[in-house]
C-alpha cells in the first residue's frame, strides 16, 4: 500500500507544472553555467568546468539552493489535501496512517530527486555543447556525476525533504513551512559565519548538515590538477558527515508521524469577545446614513483602504517573520561588516559602511515583502472570496489599486526604518555614538524606499495581468533573472534594465558626491514608467467576474479616457523627457560602453600597440607640471613640460606617447618632431623626429590634458562615473592625467578566458627570469627616475598634495596654489590629491611625517605616525637612509580600497586604516603593518626597482612584506607576527588551488599576489629565522648599494637570491633553493606525545612526529622529496595560539634534525608538558598546519 500511495503521489507530482518549472530552472542554471562564460558557480579559475571537483561542488551548492524546491514538493504532498478540502475524503479511507504519510513522502521525494537530476543533466549537456573553449573542458568522468549526485547532493536532498516534510506535517501551512526553510537557511548562514574559524573546521566538517564544510576541509588545498582529476574520498569526516545527514533526515521523518493529525482545527482566528455591552437601539431604515460620493468621501476611502491594506500586512505573521529574518540576517552582516580583512582586524561602525551592509543583507527581504504582498493584496479579495461583495460596492475603481501601491510602499519604508533602528543599535552596542539620522534618510531610506516602490509597482502590475498569484510571482522571478542575465550578456543600459539606478558610492569625505544626480534621474524615469504600469493595471483591473486578458484589454482600452488618459499622457511625457535626458548623458555627453565593449577595446588596443613595447624610447628626466583642480565641474587640467633624454646609446627616430583612455588631450608637441601616426581610438601617438635624437640629447615634450566628466554616465558593472575628481577627496595618479612615454603592458586583459575569446594568446608572460634584454627597463616602464616640479591649484579650503618638498603655498581669492619640488629622483608614477584635510604631523630624526586625514578620521593618525617612526628607525639602520625630507599619509574617499606608495606620499583609502578600531589591544595592528609596508616601498621600489621580467615583484612586494614584519616584530613581539603568518599561510595555500595559470617559484613570480605577498612573508620570515635577521639585512644592504637609483641594467630576483646566498652558510644553501627556486610543501604532523615521571622527579618525554616534503610543479603535481633538515620542536604547558599562551608556557623549544617519515624524539624536562609540537609556530609551508601540536599523555 505504501508503494501504491508513493507511486500515485509521484505520478501526481511529475505531472504538475511545479515539477517541470523546477527541473527546467535547475537544468538551465547548470547548463548555462557550462555553456556561458558569464555565469559562474563557485571558483572555477583554470579548473575545468567539468572537473570532478566542479561537478561535486556544483551539486553541493545546488543541493542547498534546491531546499526551497524540495520543500515545495514534499510540503505540497502533505498540505494539498487540506487546501483542496479533499482531506476528509482521504482520511475516511481505510488507509493506514504510516502508509499514507510515508507513501506521500516517498512519492514526493522521488519527484524531487528526479527533478534535481536536472542539475546533473544540465552539467552533462552543457559540457557537450559544441563551440566551447576546449581549454575549459576536461575528459568526461561519468563517475563524478554519479558520486556528486548520490554522495554530495543526495543526503542534503533527503535531509531537507525529510525535515521540511516534518515541519509541513506539524504546521499544515505552506507559509510556515517556508518560513522554517528561510529561518533554517539564515541560521545556517549566520552560524557558518560565526563558527567558520580554522580551529572549529574539523568539528564543522562532521556536523554541518549541508556538508559544505566537509567538502571544503576535504578539498581546501587542492591544486588545479587535483581538482581536475580527484573526487573527495568517502571516508573520515566526509563519510561521517554524510551518514549524519541521512540519520538526521530519518529522525525528522520519524517525528512526522506523531505530528500528523487528521482532525486539524481550522479555526485559529477566533478571538474572545469584549465585555458585553447592551446593543444600541435599532435605527429605522429612514434614519440610516446615506452614502455620499464627493471628494472628501473619496479621500476617506483612500485613507481607509490604505490603512486597511497596511493592517492586513502588519497583522500577517508572515510579515513579521520575514522582517525578523531580514533583521537577523542583517544583524549578522551589520555586526561583521566592521571586520577588516583577513587578519582579524576591525573598523568602527560608521554609517557609511553600515548602509551598504544593510543594502546587501536586508533589502533583499524588502524585495520579498514587496513581491509577496503585491500578490497577497491584489489577490486577497479573490482568495478570500470577498471580491463579489467588494466589487459591487460603489467605491471608485482607483480605490482598488492606489491604496495597494501606497500601502506596500509605506510598509516597505517602515521596514527600512526598522532596519535603520537596527543599524543604530549596532552602532550603540559597539560604542560608536555618532548617529547620523539625516544620512540614513538621504543615503538609504529615501533611495531604497523609492527603488523598492518601483519594484512593488512592477509586482502589482505583474499580478494584475497574470491569471493567478503564482504566475504573478513568476513575473517577478523573470524580472530577477533578467536583472542578472541581461547585464551579464552585454545588455547594460539603465534605460531598459527595469528599476536600474546608477550606484551611489558613499564616502565620509565626499558624502554622496555628485553621484546622486544620475541616480535620481533614473528614479524619475522609472517612476514615470511605473505610473504607466499602474495606469495599465488600473485599466486592466479585474472588477467583477471578468474574462481573460484579451477581453480585459479590450475593456481597458475603452476605459482609457478622462483622468487615466491624462495620467498616462503626463507619465509618457515625463518618461520620454527624463529618458531623453538620461540618454543624452549616457550616450551623447558620455560614451555608452558595456563591459564587453571595454574588453574588446582592450584586446584591440593590445593587438594594435603591444608590438611597440620594445621600441627604444627616450626617458623622462624631469617634469614640470601645473595642475588645476576644479572639483565642482568636475575637471582637472594638467599642463606641463617633460624633458626627454635619449639614454639608449643609439639615435632615436621616434617617440611614442600614450594617454589614459578617459583623458582629453588638448595640446601635445614634441620638440623637433611631428605626429606621424595617431591612434585616436587608443589615445596613442607616434612622433617622428625631424632629425634623429642623438644619444644623450635632451628634448622637451609639452602637453595640456583635461580629465573631466559631464553630468553622469551609464554607471554599471565596470564603467562608472569619474571618481578621481570629486568635490572633496580628489585623487588621481600620473598615469590617469599625464602623457606616458612608450608602450607597456599595464591594463591589458589578464583573464585567460577573455583573452582567448578575443583571439589573444591565453597568457601574456613577462620575459623569463634571467632574460638580458628586458633588464633595460623597469617594470614601471621606460622612464624611471626623474625630478618633478608640480604646482597644484585647488579651491582655497582644500589642501593639495603632490610628491616633493612644498616650497610655496599661496591663497589667492578662492584658489589655493601650492608648489612641490623634488630634489631626489622619483619614479614617473605619482599621485595628485586635494581635499579638506586635517593634518597630524610630527618631526622625527629630521623627517617630517604627516597624516592628511578627514577631520572626522583622527582616530589612528597617531598610530600611523608612530608606525612611520619605528619603520624609519628600522629601515635606516638596516637598509639605507630615507631619500626624502617628508613622508605623507593621505586619505582618499572609499571609492577604492587600497593603500599605495608613491614617492614620499602614501594615499590610503578611508575604508581602511583610518577608521580601524584598536580598542581591543590584542588585535593585529594592521594600520602599523600597512604603514610599514608602504613606507618600506620607499626602499623597495622607490630606491631599487626590478627589471621587467619574472620575479620583479619579489624585489618590491616581498621585501616590503619582510620589512613590515620586522617592524611588527619589533613593536609587538613574535607572537603577533606568528598570528599574522598563520593567516598568510592559509591564504597562500587556498589561493594556489585557485591559480588560473601556473604557480611559479617565488623568484619567478609573475605579479601573483598570493606568491609575492603571502608566500613571500613566509619565506623571508623563515629565512631570517634560519640564517639570522642580520644576514638577511646585510644581503639587502648590498643590493641597495648596487642598484639604488640606478638605471639599466635593472636588478632581478636572481640578484636578490645571489645576495642572500652570499650571506648564508653552506648548510642553508639548499634551503634557499627550496624557498626561492622551488615550490616546496611540507606535511608535518605531531602524532602522539607521552611523558613519564622519572625516578629523579624529572620527566621523560617522547614525541612521535611524521614529516614529509614535496616539490610541486606549476600545475600542483607533487613529487616527494627526501627531507633532511632541522625543524623546531616545542614542549609547552599551553597550546600555542591560545589566549593563555605566552613565552612562560614554553618548557623546551629548539631545532632538531628531522627526516622523512615517522620518528620519535626524546626529551627530559623538569616540568611535565601538556602540549608538544613540531614546527608549532607554523613557520614552514605546511599543507595541514592544524595537526602540528598534540596533547601530551
Amino acid at each position, binding site marked *: 500500500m505504501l508503494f501504491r500511495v508513493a507511486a500515485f503521489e509521484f505520478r501526481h507530482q511529475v505531472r504538475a507544472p511545479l515539477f517541470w518549472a523546477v527541473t527546467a530552472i535547475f537544468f538551465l542554471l547548470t547548463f548555462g553555467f557550462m555553456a556561458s562564460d558569464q555565469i559562474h558557480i563557485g571558483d572555477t579559475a583554470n579548473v575545468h568546468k567539468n572537473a570532478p571537483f566542479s561537478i561535486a561542488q556544483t551539486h553541493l551548492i545546488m543541493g542547498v539552493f534546491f531546499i526551497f524546491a524540495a520543500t515545495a514538493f514534499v510540503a505540497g504532498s502533505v498540505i494539498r489535501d487540506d487546501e483542496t478540502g479533499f482531506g476528509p475524503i482521504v482520511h475516511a479511507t481505510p488507509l493506514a496512517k504510516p502508509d499514507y504519510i510515508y507513501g506521500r513522502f516517498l512519492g514526493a521525494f522521488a519527484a524531487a530527486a528526479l527533478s534535481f537530476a536536472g542539475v546533473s543533466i544540465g552539467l552533462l549537456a552543457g559540457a557537450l555543447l559544441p563551440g566551447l573553449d576546449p581549454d575549459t573542458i576536461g575528459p568526461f568522468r561519468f563517475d563524478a556525476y554519479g558520486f556528486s549526485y548520490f554522495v554530495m547532493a543526495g543526503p542534503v536532498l533527503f535531509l531537507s525533504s525529510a525535515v521540511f516534510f516534518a515541519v509541513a506535517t506539524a504546521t499544515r501551512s505552506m507559509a510556515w513551512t517556508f518560513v522554517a526553510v528561510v529561518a533554517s537557511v539564515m541560521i545556517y548562514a549566520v552560524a557558518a559565519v560565526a563558527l567558520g574559524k580554522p580551529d572549529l573546521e574539523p568539528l564543522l566538517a562532521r556536523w554541518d548538515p549541508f556538508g559544505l564544510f566537509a567538502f571544503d576541509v576535504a578539498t581546501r588545498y587542492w591544486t588545479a590538477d587535483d581538482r581536475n582529476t580527484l573526487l573527495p574520498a568517502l571516508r573520515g569526516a566526509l563519510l561521517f558527515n554524510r551518514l549524519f545527514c541521512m540519520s538526521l533526515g530519518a529522525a525528522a521523518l520519524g517525528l512526522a508521524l506523531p505530528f500528523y493529525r487528521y482532525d486539524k482545527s481550522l*479555526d*485559529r*482566528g*477566533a*478571538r474572545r*469577545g*469584549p465585555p*458585553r455591552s447592551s*446593543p*444600541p*437601539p*435599532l*435605527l429605522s*431604515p429612514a434614519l*440610516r*446614513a*446615506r*452614502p*455620499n*460620493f*464627493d471628494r*472628501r*468621501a473619496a479621500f*476617506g*476611502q483612500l485613507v*481607509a*483602504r490604505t490603512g*486597511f491594506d497596511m493592517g*492586513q500586512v502588519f*497583522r*500577517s505573521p508572515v510579515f513579521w517573520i520575514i522582517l525578523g529574518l531580514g533583521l537577523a540576517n542583517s544583524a549578522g552582516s551589520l555586526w561583521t561588516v566592521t571586520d577588516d580583512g583577513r587578519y582579524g582586524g576591525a573598523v568602527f561602525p560608521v554609517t557609511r559602511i553600515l548602509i551598504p551592509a544593510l543594502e546587501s543583507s536586508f533589502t533583499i527581504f524588502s524585495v520579498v515583502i514587496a513581491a509577496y504582498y503585491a500578490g497577497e493584496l491584489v489577490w*486577497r479579495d479573490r*482568495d*478570500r*472570496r*470577498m471580491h*463579489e*461583495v*467588494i*466589487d*459591487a*460596492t*460603489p*467605491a*471608485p475603481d482607483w*480605490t482598488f489599486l492606489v491604496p495597494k501601491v501606497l500601502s506596500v510602499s509605506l510598509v516597505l519604508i517602515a521596514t527600512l526604518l526598522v532596519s535603520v533602528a537596527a543599524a543604530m543599535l549596532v552602532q550603540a552596542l559597539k560604542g560608536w555614538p555618532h548617529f547620523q539620522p539625516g544620512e540614513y534618510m538621504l543615503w538609504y531610506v529615501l533611495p531604497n524606499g523609492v527603488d523598492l516602490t518601483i519594484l512593488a509597482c512592477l509586482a502589482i502590475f505583474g499580478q494584475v495581468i497574470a491569471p493567478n498569484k503564482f504566475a504573478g510571482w513568476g513575473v517577478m522571478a523573470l524580472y530577477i533573472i533578467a536583472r542578472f542575465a541581461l547585464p551579464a550578456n552585454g545588455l547594460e543600459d539603465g534605460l531598459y534594465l527595469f528599476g536600474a539606478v546608477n550606484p551611489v558610492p558613499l564616502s565620509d569625505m565626499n558624502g554622496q558626491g555628485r553621484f546622486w544626480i544620475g541616480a535620481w534621474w533614473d528614479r524619475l524615469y522609472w517612476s514615470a514608467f511605473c505610473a504607466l504600469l499602474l495606469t495599465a493595471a488600473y485599466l486592466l483591473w479585474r*472588477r*467583477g*467576474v*471578468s*474574462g*481573460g486578458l484579451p*477581453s480585459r484589454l479590450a*475593456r481597458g482600452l475603452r476605459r482609457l479616457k478622462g483622468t487615466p488618459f491624462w495620467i498616462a499622457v503626463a507619465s509618457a511625457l515625463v518618461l520620454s523627457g527624463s529618458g531623453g535626458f538620461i540618454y543624452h548623458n549616457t550616450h551623447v555627453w558620455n560614451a555608452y560602453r558595456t563591459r564587453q565593449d571595454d574588453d574588446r577595446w582592450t584586446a584591440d588596443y593590445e593587438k594594435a600597440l603591444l608590438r611597440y613595447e620594445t621600441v627604444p624610447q627616450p626617458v623622462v628626466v624631469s617634469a614640470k607640471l601645473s595642475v588645476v583642480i576644479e572639483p565642482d565641474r568636475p575637471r582637472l587640467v594638467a599642463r606641463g613640460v617633460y624633458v626627454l633624454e635619449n639614454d639608449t646609446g643609439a639615435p632615436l627616430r621616434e617617440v611614442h606617447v600614450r594617454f589614459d583612455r578617459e583623458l582629453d588631450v588638448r595640446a601635445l608637441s614634441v620638440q623637433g618632431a611631428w605626429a606621424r601616426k595617431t591612434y585616436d581610438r587608443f589615445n596613442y601617438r607616434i612622433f617622428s623626429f625631424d632629425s634623429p635624437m642623438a644619444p644623450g640629447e635632451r628634448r622637451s615634450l609639452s602637453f595640456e590634458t583635461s580629465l573631466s566628466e559631464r553630468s553622469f554616465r551609464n554607471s554599471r558593472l565596470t564603467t562608472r562615473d569619474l571618481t578621481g575628481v570629486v568635490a572633496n577627496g580628489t585623487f588621481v595618479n600620473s598615469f590617469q592625467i599625464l602623457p606616458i612615454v612608450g608602450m607597456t603592458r599595464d591594463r591589458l586583459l589578464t583573464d585567460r578566458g577573455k583573452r582567448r575569446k578575443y583571439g589573444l594568446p591565453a597568457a601574456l608572460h613577462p620575459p623569463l627570469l634571467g632574460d638580458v634584454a628586458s633588464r633595460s627597463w623597469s617594470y614601471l616602464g621606460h622612464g624611471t627616475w626623474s625630478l618633478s616640479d608640480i604646482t597644484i591649484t585647488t579651491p582655497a579650503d582644500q589642501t593639495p598634495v603632490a610628491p616633493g618638498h612644498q616650497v610655496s603655498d599661496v591663497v589667492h581669492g578662492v584658489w589655493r596654489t601650492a608648489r612641490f619640488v623634488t630634489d631626489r629622483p622619483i619614479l614617473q608614477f605619482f599621485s595628485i590629491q586635494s581635499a579638506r584635510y586635517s593634518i597630524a604631523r610630527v618631526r622625527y630624526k629630521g623627517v617630517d611625517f604627516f597624516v592628511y586625514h578627514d577631520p572626522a578620521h583622527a582616530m589612528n593618525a597617531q598610530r600611523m605616525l608612530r608606525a612611520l617612526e619605528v619603520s624609519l628607525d628600522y629601515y635606516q639602520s638596516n637598509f639605507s637612509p630615507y631619500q626624502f625630507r617628508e613622508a605623507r599619509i593621505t586619505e582618499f574617499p572609499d571609492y577604492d580600497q587600497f593603500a599605495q606608495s608613491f614617492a614620499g606620499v602614501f594615499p590610503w583609502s578611508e575604508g581602511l586604516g583610518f577608521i580601524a578600531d584598536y580598542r581591543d589591544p590584542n588585535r593585529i595592528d594592521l594600520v602599523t603593518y600597512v604603514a610599514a609596508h608602504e613606507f618600506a616601498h620607499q626602499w623597495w621600489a622607490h630606491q631599487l626597482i626590478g627589471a621587467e621580467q619574472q620575479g620583479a615583484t619579489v624585489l618590491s612586494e616581498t621585501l616590503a612584506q619582510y620589512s613590515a614584519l620586522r617592524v611588527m616584530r619589533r613593536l609587538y613581539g613574535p607572537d603577533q607576527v606568528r598570528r599574522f603568518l598563520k593567516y598568510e599561510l592559509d591564504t597562500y595555500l587556498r589561493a594556489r588551488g585557485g591559480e588560473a595559470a601556473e604557480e611559479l617559484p617565488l623568484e619567478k613570480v609573475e605579479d601573483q599576489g598570493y606568491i609575492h605577498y603571502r608566500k613571500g612573508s613566509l619565506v623571508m620570515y623563515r629565512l631570517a629565522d634560519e640564517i639570522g635577521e642580520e644576514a638577511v639585512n646585510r644581503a639587502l644592504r648590498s643590493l641597495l648599494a648596487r642598484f639604488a637609483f640606478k638605471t639599466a641594467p635593472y636588478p632581478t630576483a636572481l640578484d636578490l637570491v645571489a645576495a642572500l646566498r652570499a650571506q648564508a652558510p653552506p648548510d642553508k644553501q639548499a634551503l634557499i633553493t627550496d624557498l626561492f627556486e622551488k615550490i616546496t610543501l611540507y606535511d608535518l604532523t605531531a602524532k602522539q606525545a607521552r611523558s613519564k615521571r622519572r625516578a629523579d622527579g624529572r620527566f621523560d618525554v617522547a614525541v612521535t612526529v611524521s614529516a614529509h616534503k614535496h616539490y610541486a610543479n606549476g600545475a600542483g603535481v607533487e613529487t616527494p622529496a627526501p627531507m633532511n633538515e632541522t625543524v623546531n620542536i616545542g614542549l609547552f604547558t599551553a597550546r600555542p595560539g591560545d589566549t593563555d599562551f605566552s613565552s612562560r608556557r614554553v618548557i623546551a623549544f629548539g631545532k632538531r634534525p628531522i627526516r622523512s617519515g615517522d620518528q620519535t624524539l626524546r626529551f627530559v624536562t623538569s616540568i611535565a608538558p601538556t602540549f608538544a609540537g613540531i614546527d608549532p609556530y607554523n613557520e614552514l609551508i605546511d599543507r595541514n598546519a592544524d595537526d602540528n601540536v598534540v596533547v601530551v599523555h
Partner: protein
Amino acid sequence: MLIIEALSHTYDEGVKALDEVSLTIPKGMYGLLGPNGAGKSTLMRIVATLQTPTAGFVRFGDIDVLANPQALRRTLGYLPQDFGVYPRVSAMEMLDHLAVLKGIAGRRERKATVEGLLSQVNLWEHRSKSLAGFSGGMRQRFGIAQALIGAPSLIIVDEPTAGLDPEERNRFLNLLAEIGENVVVLLSTHIVEDVSDLCPSMAIICDGRIVGQGAPATMIEALAGRIWMKRVDKAELYALRASHQVISSRMFAGRTVVHVLADADPGPGFTQATGDLEDVYFSTLSQAPRPSHARAA
C-alpha cells in the same frame, strides 16, 4: 422597478448560461427559483454589475445598469452566493471598512450605521469576534448587514439559505422579510420554501431560460386537481417513471412518495394531493425541455 430584457450570456468556454431572459421585478421580495446550474448566479451577477452580458438590457429605475454600473452600485446591496472573510478581522472592523467603501464617509455616522446594523442582524454580541470564527448562519447575517449599508434600493441575495440549519434559516428569512417592504429584493434560491414563505412574486429559471413566472398562489391554483400522489416501493418507481409524468419523488418513512401530474386519475393507488409551490416548481421543471449539461456559473 428592475427591468431585465432579452438578457443572454455565453461564457468564454461556450457555455450558454442565460438565454433571452426577460423579467420585470417590482418592489418587494421577488423569488428566482431554479436548480443548481440554471443560470441564477449569472443573472444575479449581471444585475449586480459584476459581469457584462453578451447581449441584453438591464434597467433599474432610471439607471442603465450596463452603461453606468457605478450609478447602480451606489444604490445596491449585494449578498453573493458565496463569500469568505479576511483573516484576523472582526465583524465590526469589516463592516466599518465596507461602510467606507459604500461611501459612508463621516466617522460618527459610520459608527452609528455599523452598530445599528450589527444589532439589527443580531450580531452585536459577536461584533469583536473574528469573522473567520463565525458559523454559517452568522456569516449570512453578517452578509445581509453589509448589503444593507447605505440604505440601498436594490438588494440582491443569491442563495442565502444554502447550508443553514432550519432555525438559522428562519431567522434569516425573517430578517429579509423585514427589509423587503420598500425596496426591490431579488432573492435567488433552489429551495422552494424560501420563495413560498416570503415572495409575493417569483420566476422559475431553468437552463438559462425563464420557464415560469407569476405569483406563487396563482401558480399553485393553476395546478389544482392535477397533482396525484402514491406511495410505492422502490422497484415500482422505475416503471412509474416510464408510464407517468412523475414530477417528484421523495422518501417518507421508508417508502417512496411519488407526485404525478395528470389531468385525470392516473390509476390505482393514486390519491389527489393538494398542490403546493414545490409541485409547481417540479412540474414546471419537468415540462421544460430536459437540461443539457448546463453549468453553474
